[in-house]
């Protein structure tokens, strides 16, 4: 007994600080798969204690009806979605949904999307004014709307957008980058120069599933965004690339793409992420954040790490 007590080391801490938020774990629920939180919170015994923050589903200035169904197509280890930013518009979301956030014990980040910069700016301003919104994540790259990837594929446009949003709101601004749009490091640098407080890396990959019988795309909108474990190595690599650009500017990277387990989260963090986002995995288990947090805790114990933040950016490349 005595010996045990003597050897007992404190449980490793999963707590991190990000953009002024105190987060109990580095696990953030990604935009789009967690709704506006109240939907998921209806599940019996739902527990926010292992969730560091939630990014609310992207809202636009005006309501959007979304894309025609089918809106989902499965593929091994992944799924494509083409929701098309269906949402009731920023005013409705603020009036009807944000009031419920105070019932849930975690941090909230608002996701915004749009076509024109002015729409983003207006949305950000309205949402940032809400007391329970701690930061704004700018969805620069929705693959499911016309021209949705413009801001994420051109560093000039990206900088203009982030700069404008940053100017128009007093809360921290996270730029959510898109994969597969050219030089992601260049876009990352442009966003940082424009004042981004953090970078989310990244959104879904554009893909297509074809119904060979009908020789038509399975999705009603033809193409959609690929998510799930299928994209995890791609996302880990992009986090690694963006971290190289962001670390020297002291801008945190949030890793996102296919995380299902504690080990997946650890990979993202070693590659350079300060926190991770979990999206598609919620569809396999609503309580997945608790499982990922437990896995991450076990990893830290095995690695004799006391704090989760200590593993961020600790990647040792084989080829120096």
């Amino acid at each position: 007994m005595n010996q045990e007590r003597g050897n007992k080391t404190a449980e490793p801490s999963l707590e991190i600080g990000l953009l002024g938020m105190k987060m109990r774990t580095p696990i953030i629920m990604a935009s789009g798969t967690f709704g506006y939180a109240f939907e998921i919170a209806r599940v019996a015994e739902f527990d926010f204690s292992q969730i560091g923050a939630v990014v609310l589903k992207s809202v636009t200035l005006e309501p959007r009806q979304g894309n025609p169904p089918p809106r989902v197509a499965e593929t091994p280890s992944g799924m494509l979605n083409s929701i098309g930013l269906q949402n009731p518009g920023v005013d409705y979301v603020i009036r009807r949904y944000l009031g419920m956030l105070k019932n849930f014990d975690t941090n909230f980040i608002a996701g915004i999307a749009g076509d024109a910069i002015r729409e983003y700016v207006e949305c950000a301003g309205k949402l940032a004014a809400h007391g329970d919104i701690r930061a704004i994540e700018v969805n620069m790259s929705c693959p499911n709307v016309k021209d949705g990837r413009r801001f994420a594929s051109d560093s000039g446009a990206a900088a203009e957008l982030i700069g404008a949003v940053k100017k128009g709101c007093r809360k921290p601004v996270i730029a959510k980058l898109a994969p597969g749009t050219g030089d992601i490091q260049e876009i990352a640098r442009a966003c940082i120069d424009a004042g981004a407080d953090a970078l989310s890396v990244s959104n879904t990959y554009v893909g297509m599933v074809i119904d060979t019988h009908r020789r038509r795309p399975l999705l009603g909108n033809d193409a959609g965004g690929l998510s799930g474990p299928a994209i995890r190595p791609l996302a880990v690599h992009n986090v690694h690339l963006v971290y190289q650009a962001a670390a020297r500017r002291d801008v945190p990277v949030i890793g996102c793409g296919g995380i299902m387990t504690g080990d997946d989260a650890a990979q993202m963090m070693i590659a350079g992420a300060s926190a991770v986002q979990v999206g598609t995995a919620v569809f396999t288990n609503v309580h997945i954040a608790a499982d990922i947090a437990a896995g991450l805790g076990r990893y830290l114990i095995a690695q004799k790490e006391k704090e989760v933040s200590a593993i961020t950016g600790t990647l040792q490349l084989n080829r120096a």
Partner: protein
Amino acid sequence: MSKQKPAGPYETVATVIAQEPAGAVAYCLTLECPEIARSARPPQFFTISCHPLTGDGADGISLDPLLRRPLGFYRLRPEKGEFDAVYQVVGRGTKLLATLKPGDRVRVLGPLGKYISPKDVNSQTVLLAGGGVGLPPLYSLAETLKDAGKEPIVIAGARRRETLIAPTVPRKLKRPVGGRREVQSLEPFARSDIDSVVALEEPEDGFFEGRITVPLKEYLEQDYEGGVEIVACGPPPMVRAIAGLAGEKSVKCAAIMESRMGCGIGACQTCAIKTTSGYRRVCVEGPVFDSKEIVWE
């Protein structure tokens, strides 16, 4: 009886009790899951992982396919904490479901969606029309309606007798239809003393010949002192035909819809179908819709 809202949904693990063929093309899965069995009310549904829990790292997470399958409730046995669900093998996911064995443990989420409360059903007689794996949810619904003092009558449609999810037995109808008193009836409904008739596209003795609308039309010709309405559940073209006939006859019709699903609890907007008031989610605004509101495509 109480006004109390049912609890849940529950994210939990169910144990497979049994798995048996249901007709020639479907399977009936019996699951033990007290939380869901006690709170489910037809025609709610649940989602199920296609892979059992294995005890390793990412436990019970299915990677291919990634998403859980939505299934309706067939027989609910709340006192035993069990329920049955019937599905047809149509793709990779349901093929994997068919390999589940007694003792396997699987991730489930439910009960999901809106239910039909008998006290919200104004008519005394309810025609429950459906086919394929749409029939089992109509079974639990018929029982609920019957227990509440309503008159449920089941009308089934199938191509051949073999494609029905349950065997048929001869039955003397309580309410004869189209001049028929003795028909072939679906065995589970007959056992619960609920009238049912079956329309087959390939004719046989004791069955109506043609599509489901043939017997449905006969039923709609009759008089119902306490009023009549329809609940439809089945393949979309069948539900659409039923809804069309209901529209012609100005009879209220609830359509139980299905859709490819993401979260199952209203967060992701994946399962939206087109309605007269825009895209609406099958998982929370449904699965029950007024058939007049559905925009068929």
